[in-house]
């Protein structure tokens, strides 16, 4: 699984993209759990959203290697 990283998420992971063959998540909720287990710093953010194919995804949203997946830390535009 390949995950795009932005903002503080890049600093937490130490890279612009996270490639994690060990992740087995079938949906967004499971992905968040795996992320926080591997990088506990994500639990400290005021929010942690996942985008699937360039849309905010609910916890139930199913994911696979075909999707474009991105971690969306708290946004701070404007």
């Amino acid at each position: 699984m390949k995950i795009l990283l932005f903002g503080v998420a890049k600093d937490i992971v130490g890279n612009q993209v996270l490639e994690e063959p060990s992740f087995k998540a079938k949906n967004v909720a499971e992905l968040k759990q795996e992320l926080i287990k591997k990088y506990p710093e994500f639990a400290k953010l005021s929010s942690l959203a996942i985008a699937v194919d360039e849309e905010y995804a609910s916890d139930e949203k199913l994911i696979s290697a075909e999707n474009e997946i991105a971690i969306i830390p708290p946004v701070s535009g404007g």
Partner: protein
Amino acid sequence: MEKKIEIIENIDPSLIHKDLSHPASGGICVFIGAVRDTTQNQKVNSLFFEAYEAMALKEMEKIAEAASKQWNLNRLIMQHAVGDKKVEEPVVLVGASSAHRDDCFEACRFLIDTLKEKVPIWKKEFFDGKDEVWVTPHP
């Protein structure tokens, strides 16, 4: 409704009237967000903006769509800058034009509030003699 939605290097505020003027519009309301020299009592040197561009444009389109349903608008603009921005440089510009001023004022406020809440763009602050930090707002 005509709309202009962009993620760009440099916002040019001198185009506001050209971009929003319309024969049926008696009112144009615009908000420009710029780099401020201070945040939480610390002197800011510059900001850096990063966007998840494809998704940011989709979210901006959704916000424009929602505004066009809620208010009677003739034209709408949403622009966000990326890259390094110095103090006083514009980083975001939103606005709308409408027959009467209630619509463009309310829509303009909605555009900036919703952009700040939803659009995947991140700001890093650079200070004097201190490490830079990604801004991670706590609601």
